[in-house]
Structure formats: C-alpha cells, structure tokens
C-alpha cells in the first residue's frame, strides 16, 4: 500500500539579508495510514519548517524549492493550486500548534472558532457547525463543552485551550494531524492528559499523526517510528524501540544521554557541547562534526549519505563504514559554546 504522505528531497530555503537559510535541506520520509511518526531535534533543526512546508504555510522570504515533492493522497502538494490546497488545510491535513493561547483568536468564542472549520469544509450552517463543534469538544474531554464553547480563549485554562485546538484539528476527521510541540506550554500533569488524548483519538479515528518535539519522552510515549533531524537534514530514522536500544548517529546518542533519569545520582545533566550552526552557513562535510566526539578526517571532507545500519534503520554517519572508531571517543574538535546560532 502506498504511504499516506511521501516527502522526497524537500528543500525549504529562506532568502534573508544574511544569506540563504537552508532550513530544510533535502528531507525525505514517509508516513503510513494510521501511523504515528515522530520528528525530534533541537530548536533550529528544521522540524517546524518541515511541518509548515507540508501545509504550504511558508511565508516569504521563504519558499519551497523546485524539485521538492510532497505527495499526499495521490496529489503533489508542492505544485497543487492554491484553491485545492485550501481544501486540504484543516480538512485532510490539520495541525496543532504549541502556543495554545496565541493560536486562538481572542475576539471570537472558542466554539465559533472550532465551528468555522466545519463551515468552510463541510458547508454546514452556523447552527449545525456549532453543534458539531460542541460534539468534538466533548470528544476531547472538555468539561461542560456546551458552556465552554460560548466562552472566549482568555476565559479558559491552558489545557482547555489545547483541547480547543485539538477539536479544531479533528472536527473534519483529517487523514493526517501534525502536532508541533503540542504539550510544551502545558504543565506536566496536563501534558500527560493531552498525550493520552492524542493517542486515544488517533486509535479511534485511524488518523496518522506527525509528532514534532524536542522531547524524547513524548516520542517514546506516542510514536512508533522516529526521524531525527539535525541542521536541516534527516540524520537518523528507525522504529522507536530500535532507536532507543541502538542509537547509531552520535547526535541521537547525545540526545538520549542528555535525558534526565529519575533515580540516577547525577550532579549535572549531560549536554551536547555547542549549538546548531546557523542555517545560512551549514558546515561542509558532516554538519555535526564540530560537536561530535568521533569526528575524523572523512566527515570533514565528505558529506555523509544516509547509510543502512539495520532493518528499516538509516543513519547519516560515516561510522557506518568504520564502526571500530566508536571505541575511541575524544572531546569534540571545536567547542563553540553559544556561538554559531546567531
């Protein structure tokens, strides 16, 4: 069966005064029907831009470069007409943002904001759309949905606002929901509730989910397959179990090691030294080499391809051809603390 979404060589560049920012630089991956896929990476690695590219919500000076392909339900979203693209947004593909306060319009009731989606795409009357919005809010576990629907965003708590955004994303039962850091702005207990809700709704509707996060805990709890992004590229892809058991790319290793562990007596958290370089000026060769404990002359000369390192497991690291070097870690060649992200 063909995947629901198939992205090939996606390049999204921003033409800024500081130069061309290659924020997403040749990304390829698939999402199957009903599958939950996670994208993980630091701020600035291109994960959010990838999500916005799928919905073609990239604003100038950014643009999706010619040659990129985003196939969804048999259509190429990169070349699709604006009108047809509008029928996909909110209807077949929807998105949940990380800022539940600012993502809602302060001057409309939340019920109207959810109902608006059904009015555009299902052509429902105002009354019917509102009823549908109340039903969908009830599905998200919103307490007293009838009354809450008539209220304005500022009258709701953060968790309730996130439920409103989820209702907005699910009211048309889309084939794909993109969740961009859906729990970052919430406190821990609400985070767990929202994640449970997403998993539950995904099972109920058979919706595919693309979960974008910097939090490996969220990935472990919700997804079946993980894509690790670094500096605008996919650097590793594997099933969740495989990735946590046998991380291959040094960046993935670093991410896993920097997770805090309860019960371990740690004075300090492990961190990956340095920061993501500026997207206007990716280093040549391996883009991670300046922060890498294994770097040698090959990554300096040659940009690594995606190597097959296991069953459905790929990694963009030259260690795939010289695995014995893993036994000789050394401090990273250049530690650029706080520099380079500017």
């Amino acid at each position: 069966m063909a995947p629901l979404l198939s992205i090939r060589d996606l390049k999204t560049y921003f033409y800024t005064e500081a130069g061309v920012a290659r924020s997403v630089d040749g990304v390829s991956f698939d999402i199957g029907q009903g599958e939950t896929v996670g994208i993980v990476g630091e701020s600035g690695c291109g994960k959010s831009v990838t999500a916005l590219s799928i919905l073609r919500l990239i604003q100038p000076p950014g643009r999706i470069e010619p040659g990129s392909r985003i196939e969804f339900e048999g259509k190429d979203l990169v070349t699709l007409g604006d009108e047809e693209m509008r029928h996909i947004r909110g209807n077949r593909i929807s998105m949940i943002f990380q800022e539940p306060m600012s993502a809602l319009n302060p001057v409309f009731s939340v019920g109207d904001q959810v109902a608006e989606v059904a009015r555009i795409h299902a052509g429902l009357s105002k009354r019917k759309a509102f009823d549908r919005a109340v039903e969908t809010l009830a599905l998200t576990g919103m307490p007293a949905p009838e009354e809450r629907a008539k209220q304005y965003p500022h009258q709701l708590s953060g968790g309730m606002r996130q439920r409103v955004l989820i209702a907005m994303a699910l009211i048309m039962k889309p084939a794909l929901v993109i969740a961009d850091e859906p729990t970052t702005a919430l406190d821990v207990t609400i985070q767990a509730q929202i994640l449970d809700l997403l998993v539950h709704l995904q099972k109920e509707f058979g919706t595919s989910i693309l979960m974008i996060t910097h939090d490996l805990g969220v990935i472990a709890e919700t997804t079946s397959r993980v894509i690790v992004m670094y500096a605008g590229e996919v650097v590793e892809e594997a099933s969740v179990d495989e990735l946590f058991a046998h991380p291959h790319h040094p960046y993935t290793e670093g991410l896993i090691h920097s997770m805090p562990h309860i019960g371990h007596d740690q004075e300090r958290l492990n961190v990956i030294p340095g920061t993501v370089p500026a997207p206007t000026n990716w280093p040549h060769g391996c883009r991670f080499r300046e922060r890498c404990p294994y770097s040698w002359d090959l990554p300096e000369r040659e940009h690594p391809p995606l190597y097959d390192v296991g069953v459905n497991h790929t990694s963009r690291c030259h260690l795939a051809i010289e695995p014995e070097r893993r036994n000789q870690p050394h401090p990273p060649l250049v530690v650029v603390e706080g520099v380079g992200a500017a």
Partner: protein
Amino acid sequence: MLRYLSRRLAQAAVIVAFVAAISFALIHLAPGDPFSAIMDNPNVSETVRQTLRAQYGFDRPLPEQFVRYIGRLAHGDLGWSFSHDRTVVEVLGSALPNTLLLMGVALIGSFALGIFVALVQVARRESVTDHALSGVTLVLFSMPDFWFAILVLLVFTYWIPIFPVGGAVDPVTHEYMTLGARIADRLRHLVLPALTLTVLAVGTVARYQRAALIDVLPADYIRTARLKGLTERDILRRHALRNALLPVISLIGLSFPALLTGAFFIEKIFAWPGMGLAVVNAIGTRDYPLVVGGVIIGSIMVTLGSLLADMLYAWADPRLRGH
C-alpha cells in the same frame, strides 16, 4: 459597569468645569467687550456704555462674574447672546443639529472609507497600489484644514460650479420647495463641507488602520486561520480586521476634538450655520456668553465622544467585557 460610568461622568464634569473657567478667563482678557462696537458710534457717550456694562454686570470683578456665571450654568442658563438678541441656549440649540450632522457624516464617512482603503492596501501590501495609496493618505493627513477647504470651494463652486457656495439651504427658494426638493436642496448644500471634512480625516484613519492590520498579521491566530483553509480575503476581513479594529475604535474618541475644530474652520469657510460658525462670529463681536457657551458645549461633546469610544471598545473586546 454602572460605577465605571458614573466615575467617568464625574471626570467629564470636572473637565468641562475647567474648560469653562479657562475659556471664561481668556475671552475676558481679550481687549474690548460686547459694547465696544456701540462705542464706535460717536453719538454714544461713555456714560451710556458704563450704564450698559453695569446693567449686564461687566463692571464687577472677574471672579465674581465667574461665580455668577457658574451659578446660572448650573440651572442650564448659558446667558444672553448680544449679537443674536436671543438666549445662548436658543442660538446653540438651532446651530448644534447642523454641526452634529456635519460631524456625523464626516465621522462615519471617514472611518468607512479609511478602513476600506487600509484593507485594499494590506491585501496588496508592498505593491504599487499600496505605496501610491500611502502617498495619498500622507498628503491628506498633513494638509491644513482651511487650505483644503478653500481649494475645494475654488474647484467646485468657481471653476466647476456644480455645488452651492455656502449655507445649509438655498436662502431664497427653499421656503417654496416641495418636501422632496427641500431634502435634495439640503443634501446639495451638505456635500462640499461634509466631503471636505471626510477627506481630511480619511488619511489619519487609513494610516492607523493599515498599521493596525499589519501589526496583527504575524499573530499566531492568523496562522491558525490560514491553517483552517480560509481564503486570504476571509483571513483579512474576519480574523485580522476584527482585532485590528480595536485600536481604531479608540481613534474615534481621539478624533472627536480634531473633527470639532475641523468643523469650526469648515463651517466658517462654507458658511454652514453650525456651532462653529456661531462661535467664530461671536469671537469677533466679543459676544462673551456665546463664545463660552459654545466652548462648553464643544467640551461636553468631546468628553462624551471619548466616553462613547471607550464603551464601544469595551464592548468590542471580549477580554474587557463585563469589567
């Protein structure tokens, strides 16, 4: 809400009292008095003038005159207009509807047109249309009222004489017209002063509204609207405009003084029989009670206008509703 309203009304009363005191003092400090014109007649003696001054109480010390004036004001008595030989209340009462008509038309016209222009600009932002309209609104914004009014008068009554030169109705034939013709006559006279005042205010509104729209466009909820599959047109007109209207509503309150002073100039130039014309003429004849009465009514209009704008703002923004 009721407490807020009564507090605001009390503030307004204090402001009006200050305005009354200042305008009272200023006009009395100006040389001459209501009887100066009579004194130009060599046959009127100084004794007659002194008698008149004593009769109307102008010989008393200024503070005493003011206290008496405030006492009468509390009873709704604004005094006697010497130049019109009627009470000030009567003079302003017949002039006020004309001023309100002119200001009302200009207020609605300038906001409707200004918001429309801003929407057109923002829909095509950074295009030639946008820049051209920005240029036009800047010119309108910076143009002096009186100069533009005289220019309009020159163009539409002299070069292309299609509108009457002044007044609110035709002074000769209006009395003999049918009802329909009377209304048409009034409208014909209203066009130039109302248009002038509207065009003068449009620049400010359009520039304000454009900036407010551009301010809200990067907001996350606009991205949400795009994500829902709304057209750019609906995003702008529903989601962006509804938020960007809020600062423009407060502009309504701020534009009241400008509209009122604008109306004063324009009434004088188009001989529009409103409050402005009455007060400007009263300054020339040192008709103290009419000047002070006009300024007080004007200050009441401005304070009520800003109160109204604030209430409209509170109603339009759900975050303020019920506070």
